[in-house]
């Protein structure tokens, strides 16, 4: 699969690493090249400096032929806007977005964006551990 990831933090970087090791074609975008330190030296994918909300960066990242787009920047709004650009402008078949705010997460999942709220998932996991 061709996967474009926006945001190379701990999560984005790790996801890129795992997918790359699994044989997928990965392009990871970040506004700051220093973020690419999260990628291992064995990373075979492409690390691209740029803003995922920017048309040129998206095209350079190969969004037009991507199978999956994932947004994992620190900003919920940036993530959902980029996800909606990928879905509605470039018709990427699968679009997944990280949204911290559980209420916004619920709303956007109703609007057709696959969403994951680390806040919700993390709290539920912790609750499970405590109550076991």
């Amino acid at each position: 699969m061709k996967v474009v990831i926006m945001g190379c933090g701990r999560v984005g970087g790790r996801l890129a690493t795992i997918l790359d090791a699994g044989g997928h074609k990965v392009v990871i975008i970040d506004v700051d090249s220093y973020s690419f330190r999260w990628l291992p030296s064995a990373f075979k994918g492409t690390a691209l400096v740029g803003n995922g909300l920017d048309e040129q960066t998206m095209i350079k990242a190969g969004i037009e032929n991507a199978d999956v787009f994932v947004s994992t920047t620190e900003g919920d709004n940036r993530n959902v806007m980029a996800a909606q650009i990928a879905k509605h402008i470039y018709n990427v078949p699968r679009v997944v977005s990280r949204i911290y705010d559980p209420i916004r997460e619920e709303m956007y999942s109703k609007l057709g964006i696959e969403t994951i709220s680390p806040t919700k998932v993390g709290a539920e996991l912790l609750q499970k551990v405590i109550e076991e």
Partner: protein
Amino acid sequence: MYIIVVGGGESGYYIARTLLNGGHEVLVIESDAKRCTIISDNLGNIVFRGDGCEAATLEEVGTNRADILIGVTGHDEDNLVACQVAKHKFNVPRTIARLKNPKHEGLFKKLGVDVTVSSTNLILANIKRELPDSPLCSLLAIKGGTLEVVNVKIPPNSPVVGKQLSELELPEESIICLVVSKGGSTQIPKPSTVLAAEDEIVAITTPENEIALQNALIGNSS
């Protein structure tokens, strides 16, 4: 009307002031404490400190009874999300977003934002109007951008100089609304109105016919 303004920067401040003067109920949502103080010192207790993109904040300020929500933060993505949450979660009938990147206009419309205002395009249009070789400039978009009001200055070498309006061949959906002479006097256009060099014409056209209208009024030279 109850109008919520997300973003208490300069734009948010002046929008709130204008709306208050118009007798509306206005609430500004701003996350920065300093900006909140400036606004409440000048305009009264109309500020709520918080994140206007957060559904919980919008719930707290009674967004479900708002008539309009205006997103004027400095970030396109925040304006988009504030409008989308207002629309989809609180059924706000009208949402307006300020845009910095004009390329996002189509996306915002597609995603349900009712009105977009591109500050970059407005600045560009205003500057273009002041440039010497810019015969046509867009003054205002109406009907959701399907029509626009334009201003055209007739250059001395234009083929329409000395012609009556009835002799002009204008593109479809283009209407001349006003002729302003070089001296500043205005005329409601009649078929017999004769155009002179340096006249300024205010017309309505569609974005598609803009170039055709320009060519009809100033010639094909460009």
